């Protein structure tokens, strides 16, 4: 008997959370990818760049988490266990580069939840969007994520 996901979370907005980008975290992220691009990891190259500092790799903002919140909130809202999750799709729109020392505000909203049966059985798709804004309130990055729940 397949499990049910809670579709009532469509439209839910999670409390906004701030993230301050740290230089070391950018470097750790680049090195975890095995990407030694000097624009990410070399301070002198960053300082001489058009951005005046190192910048983050394009997928870096996936690491933005609400440290004050319970990391299991989405799972609990959906009513599912972490072992059932797969990453279905991911999109980043990057309007401005993320740089160290800046504090950004992240707002995540659940856009949709729908079910489909694929090759490997029934699945639910959870579509979320996160807007990352700077101190002026301008969107610097937006992320759209589809999480797949194996039902």
């Amino acid at each position, binding site marked *: 008997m397949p499990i049910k996901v809670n579709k009532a979370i469509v439209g839910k907005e999670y409390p906004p959370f701030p993230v301050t980008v740290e230089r070391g975290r950018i470097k750790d992220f680049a090195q975890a990818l095995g990407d030694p*691009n000097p624009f990410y990891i070399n301070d002198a190259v960053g300082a001489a760049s058009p951005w005046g500092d190192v910048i983050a790799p394009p997928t870096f903002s996936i690491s933005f988490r609400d440290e004050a919140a319970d990391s299991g909130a989405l799972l609990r809202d959906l009513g599912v266990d972490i072992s059932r999750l797969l*990453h279905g799709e991911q999109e980043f729109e990057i309007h401005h580069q993320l740089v160290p020392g800046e504090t950004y505000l992240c707002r995540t909203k659940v856009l949709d939840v729908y079910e489909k049966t694929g090759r490997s059985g029934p699945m639910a798709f959870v579509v979320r969007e996160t807007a990352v804004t700077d101190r002026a309130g301008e969107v610097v990055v937006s992320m759209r994520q589809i999480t797949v729940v194996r039902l």
Partner: protein
Amino acid sequence: MKYGRIYFEDVQVGDMLPPLVKGPLQQIQLTRYAGASLDFNPIHQDEEFARAAGMGGVFAHGMLSMGWVGQALTDWAGAGSVRRLGVRFAALVRLKDIVTCTGRVISKSEKDDLRLVDVEVWAENQKGDKVVTGKATLVLPSRA
């Protein structure tokens, strides 16, 4: 020209990105990526957990492969050139897999003073199965 920049005028529709080859994938890279991305889902770390979940063993974070696709783009076009990157995770990447990321220029356009290049991107494993497919938009400088 690794870590250089390419100019809008030098790009032609149909141009291929130089392939970026990663792997064979080792567990330590998944552990390191978990720490860097703060994604500690045990399905990427714990063989027993992944088997009990019905996944047949540990597999890589989709975001690791997407990060490699991003690297293939920025190795070619320069850091900071990615305006948009969207992918679908088409198949799982397993330990020992070798993943090759590449892409092909599908269009060029100019909008609001920005010179944009659309690229079809993908990553495939050593068997030739696509593990990531997607599209990217790059902003490139002009020689003008």
